[in-house]
């Protein structure tokens, strides 16, 4: 019998849902086993009744809840709490749900500063008051990961998560298992490049020039990106972006890892560890402009990015 599933996106971009659809052929085997009782992307179930006359948000009961996106406003918070109440297992899908994601970079500013910019300082806009109609939900104090609001049973990180992991995690729940997680390995552990534990030294290069490599040859013939002098987040990032078989995706594009799968395990300090990794090959990590945001590109929830006291103007 098909298992009831609730899926929704909160403060998200829909990339996680596209990744579900990118599962490929196994998707057609998986679909009959799943009964989506709510999924905004694909099914027309409504929160306030199918004829829009309800007054209370109604989330159907389900065995599995899947939520992508962080929590950015009061309504998303309420919806998440309702989904938690109505589901037995809650999966956080993607790095926004797991860590706040790219939109959590907004945590470096006060909410009123963001609104001031968006509604009164954009060059094409006629300045106006902040939208305040009851139909536009108020922002929460920060852009939060969903486990800052409710308990989460299974986390599938990634921006987006690889379809292999979505299929594996959901299948394991359907088979009666109650937990699933990625092995605690770093991107470097799965990266075939040549490492010599040293670099040319000096400041870390900005991404203004390409790496050195022979396009006719595989990554196993290319020198490590950090050792070529660039910032690559591989040493401090959880492996898995390429699914069960591939090499790290951004490296495959001959570009550095951005850190989208988040930290390798809970409780580590990726920024400290990353600066250590750069130092260990002789680079000067303090030369990186904007390193706080670059090293927390996907992980601004959980208080990792926050408003700092104003710095004196240069």
């Amino acid at each position, binding site marked *: 019998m098909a298992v009831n599933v609730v899926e929704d996106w909160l403060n998200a*971009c*829909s990339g996680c849902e596209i990744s579900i*659809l990118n599962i490929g*052929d196994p998707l057609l085997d998986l679909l009959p086993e799943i009964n989506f009782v709510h999924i905004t992307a694909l099914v027309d179930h409504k929160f306030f009744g199918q004829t*829009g006359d309800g007054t209370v948000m109604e989330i159907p009961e389900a065995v599995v809840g899947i939520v992508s996106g962080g929590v950015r406003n009061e309504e998303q918070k309420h919806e998440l709490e309702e989904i938690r109440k109505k589901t037995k297992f809650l999966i956080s899908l993607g790095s926004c749900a797991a860590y706040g994601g790219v939109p959590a970079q907004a945590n470096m500013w006060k909410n009123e500063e963001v609104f001031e910019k968006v509604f009164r300082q954009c060059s094409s806009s*006629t300045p106006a008051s902040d939208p305040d109609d009851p139909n536009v939900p108020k*922002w929460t104090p920060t852009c939060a990961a969903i486990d800052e609001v409710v308990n989460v049973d299974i986390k599938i990180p990634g921006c987006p998560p690889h379809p292999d992991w979505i299929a594996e995690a959901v299948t394991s729940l359907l088979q009666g298992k109650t937990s699933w997680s990625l092995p605690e390995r770093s991107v470097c552990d799965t990266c075939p490049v040549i490492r010599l534990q040293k670099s040319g030294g000096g400041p870390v290069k900005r991404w203004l*020039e390409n790496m050195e490599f022979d396009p006719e040859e595989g990554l196993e013939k290319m020198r490590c990106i950090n050792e070529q002098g660039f910032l690559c987040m591989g040493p401090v990032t959880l492996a898995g972006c390429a699914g069960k078989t591939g090499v790290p995706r951004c490296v495959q594009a001959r570009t550095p890892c951005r850190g989208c799968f988040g930290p390798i395990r809970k409780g580590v300090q990726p920024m400290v560890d990353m600066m250590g990794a750069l130092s260990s090959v002789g680079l000067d990590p303090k030369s990186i402009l904007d390193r706080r945001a670059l090293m927390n590109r996907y992980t601004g929830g959980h208080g990792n990015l926050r408003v700092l006291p104003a710095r004196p103007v240069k």
Partner: protein
Amino acid sequence: MSTVINIQPVTRIEGHAKLSITLDDAGNVADTKFHVQTLRGFEKFCEGRPVEEMPRTVCHICGICPWAHHLASSKAADACFGVTPPPTAVKLRRLMQSIAYVSDKILHFYFLAAPDFVIGPDADYGVRNVVGIVQAAPDIAKQVVHMRHLGAQMLEGFAGRAIHPTFSVPGGVSKPLTETERQKMLPSARELLEFSKFTIKFAKENVFPKYLDAIKSIGVIDVGCLGTVRDDGALDFYDGKLRMMKTDGSYEDFAYDDYLDYIGEWVEPWSYQKFPYAKKWGQFNMSPENPEGVYRVNCLARINVADKMATPLAQAELDEFRATFGRPARYTLLYHYARLIELLQAAETVVELLNDPEITGTDIRVPVTAKEGRGVGCVEAPRGTLIHDYECDGDGLITKLNMIVGTTHNNAAINLSVNQAAREVIKGGKYDQGILNRVEMAVRSYDP
């Protein structure tokens, strides 16, 4: 006493929106609103970030059209640093964009829009969805899943990622296409082209004729159009000049760097999404009887402003379309038809570019130095004209950023179409889920 119908969430679209329809005492539509309920604040939090990081940060604005943001941002970054990417790099960017277009359009037509047309607008929502499609047309569904997978594999096989790419960089791209990679992509490209040909044929024979009445009645509005054309007037997804067309078909062309002279944005208290309008035309208002300054973007607007398509099969389809619906075509549901004409152009472009001798060139990036500047980048995203406008300081850190994204341009038009559709289908207080779904169909046409 007035009644308010709340349709929330608007489903089978790519964001968070709500429709409120207010009925008067007689049960007729007094007012409607399309509320966009989320705001993320990219315009603010990109401040202080290095310009070269923008293409691989702002792609996260949209998980369905990350390539559009990735490329608009790369073009803005090129302009900030005052560089012109080598021809091969531009072709590779176009290639990736065209593959992403094909995947995007297949997704929208079969998974998001088709349930209304293949299963039917009045069907129970439990079957009016992709699962219903899989049951009703298993062979087609299997093909769709395969084709989407094929597109994703082409993007990933070469550029590492289908979603949230890193391949395009200021000054060019990160890697060249080898002959081996080209050979590997070609059969897939041909397969996608064949499927695109099948799709438009299938839709013209089995879908559109059944819904001619709906096409002529749901969401119909008379507003302007905006899109990108080459110097020869052909529709282009990656580069060209912007063309803004009035309802009478007259138009003005302008360089996208000058968008601030032509486009303004209005804010309403009931939506986080702004309302771009044609500043050059004077006023802006969304009164259903006499809207002013309203234009729309995305495929129907693009094929309206273009003198022609850029590829032969798509051109033949445009000729046929225009013979029936004229230029500019006004019926909102024709977005679905226009989308498939564009699908064909994108699929033809993929094959064309893969056969271009320059595509395997190795000169793919020019040297870039961070410096103070301003750069505007513009591409046609699947959902419409996408403008990124960056200013940076001497270290190349963003000091000011403005963006107008595809669906935002359509905000006023979507509101007008919702209003028209609601008035058309809700009368005397009578409505059910099928009738309300027809109002949503007006929204879905725009693929917001």
